[in-house]
């Protein structure tokens, strides 16, 4: 199963987080919201200008900018 960056995922695609490369404030923010390896996600939608992206994790919806999504590696189903 291939690893891709979260930014490359299509709407409604699902996958499991494989790694978070960000550190510092962004890394902490991502992890505080539950973006840690092993969690399943589904891309919920994209904003009209294709950025930010919204995704579903642990039963709630989260939004991320594309440049923030670049730090997240996903193993897609």
């Amino acid at each position: 199963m291939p690893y891709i960056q979260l930014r490359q995922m299509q709407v409604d695609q699902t996958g499991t987080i494989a790694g978070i490369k960000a550190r510092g404030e962004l890394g902490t923010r991502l992890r505080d919201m539950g973006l840690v390896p092993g969690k399943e996600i589904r891309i919920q939608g994209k904003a009209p200008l294709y950025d930010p992206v919204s995704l579903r994790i642990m039963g709630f919806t989260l939004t991320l900018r594309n440049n923030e999504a670049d730090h997240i590696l996903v193993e897609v189903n």
Partner: protein
Amino acid sequence: MGIAIALAGNPNSGKTTLFNVLTGARQHVGNYPGVTVEKKQGRCVSGIDEFHVVDLPGTYSLSAYSLEEVVARDFIVKEQPAMVVNIVDASNLERNLYLTLQFMEMGISVCIALNMMDVAKKRGIDIDIAKLSSLLRLPVVPMVARTGKGRDDLLKTVADHAKTRTKSLKISYGRDIDEALDEMVEKISSEHFLTDRYLPRWVALKYLENDVQILEMGKEQNPQMDAWLSSVARKLTHHLDTTLDTHPEGMIADQRYGFITSILKQGVMTCTRNKNRIETSDKIDKIVTHRFLGPMLMVAVLMGLYQFTFTYSAVPVGWCEDFFGWLAGRVDGLLSDGLLKSLVISGIIDGVGGVLGFVPLILFMFLGISFLEDTGYLARMAFMLDRIFRLFGLHGASVMAFIVSGGIAGGCAVPGVMAARTLKSPKERLATLLTVPFMNCGAKLPVYALLVAAFFSENQARVMFIITLISWVGALLVAKLLRSTVIQGPATPFVMELPPYRLPTFKGLAIHTWERTWQYIKKAGTVILGISIILWAMMTFPRLDTATMADPAPAGTQQAAAWQTGEEQVDPAAAALRHSIAGRMGTALEPVTRLAGFDWQTNIALVGGFAAKEVVVSTLGTAYSLGNVDPEDAGSLSERLQSAPGWGPITAFSLILFTIFYSPCFVAVVCIAKEAGSWKWGVFSMAFNTLLALGVSIAFFQTATWVMS
């Protein structure tokens, strides 16, 4: 002395709702010392027990990266409440418990108020409360804050457990980290390093997590220990990096979530329904954030909010005006002409009227925004607009403040500045506060109307459109400029929750709206009244008596000469205005403002505009010796300007540009200072905006005159 409890929890978990259920009307809103984070306190009584409740800011975690998180954890450490009531959203248990664990690691006695039980049930989530409680070794009380269900149970539980000290939670973070922690804890304990406030293990964890606040505190208290702990942390970081390609912060978060998952898996939470079922909220989102429908709907909502704020508030604003008009009329009859009467009418009554005149606006604006915020729509709007606003160093949620301020011509910067409260990112928020006054508020419109009618009567609509365009483009460019200079720094991460759509309760909206409006009256009101009296004095003193009448105007400008030779008829009101401090300022500034095409009359009017922008029109009328000019109907002034020397389309447009950009009116300045938490920013907006306006006007005037010649 009651039992002190602090409410903590994730945003949107129902914290405010619970606070209202607990305290009812016995609450009081202020700020945490030195910061702009709102602090709500209240009392509540249940049986024989009395509770003192503090609402902590909503947070997802307790890192040192956001002001809210620092405030929450400092409060707990410094004020030592008997118990932290942690509101946990039952329909979102996994993520909410992440914060709970961090309280437990701090060794604080925590009680879980398991809220939104109704929502959880509807979603088919079944929670074994007894099991959750025994696994976490914490009291857990199921609740539905919205209906008040569980309130008494919660208070009873708090009263029962408030005195018992809980043992702090120790999560295993894997061998490498645990070993480092043990080594650090031993030394921290023996050196009593920061242990007057924090648990040794917590301090050690924060060193591994690279927590700026604790690192700074440590360095100050004991530089040697700080250096040693940092070196241990560095060694561990290097080790984890080479062996596992990870870092301590990452591993710590992983293990916390791992701990939560392991607890939930022991039969605490069972889903009786497919987890991937599409919720109603998601269906709504398919339409509301749709590529084409979304933006269209958003425009409609913004127009609706605008209509709601400014159309429906017009009636009570009218009552306010009528009342103060009536009052001024009464005083006019009672007092004899003179200084006292002028002070009472122009200083005090106009000042109080000015303060209260904004109240209906602010009330309606907060009602509208609270509604959008509580339903969850505001977050969607930020989501859709973020891409555009981010280009200028702002945030998607900035749009509200811009629209209310007059992004649709006719708003008001005062509620606009306050609307920026919905912004959680500090730098984006400050940039928003400083740029919304460029929008075309309702008070600037009479100024534009006057000038456009006098000099651009053929293209009125087009010029008005150009004005709107210039103010938007100008505001966004200045935001960009500020964000790359005085408010520098990378964008605050946009990691944001889109809460499920919910119908707000009337009570929630009413309390929220009233609270904020009252804060405006109390905090801004007094300052505004004071300044309006000062402005009155500036336009009145020094007074012109008959002696000075014969020997007028110190400055040797053309107009002064014209005045002395009697070429121009001067009425006493105009002469008195010119003689006042404001008048002298206007005259003294003429050499500079000439470059932008403004004469001293215009300068005085602009000084007056600092009180309120529409005053520009009436002051211009007085300065041009027309007596009282009604800003709504300035036909005579319009004709006067057309024939006045030095006036023409170029001068008029230069003045329009100046009006767009120069200092916000002082009510807005006071609000900016209050919202930004420092007078520095209030002063900055006055000085910076005025210089900017002068620059823009001079550049335009000089270029245009050169091109035309």
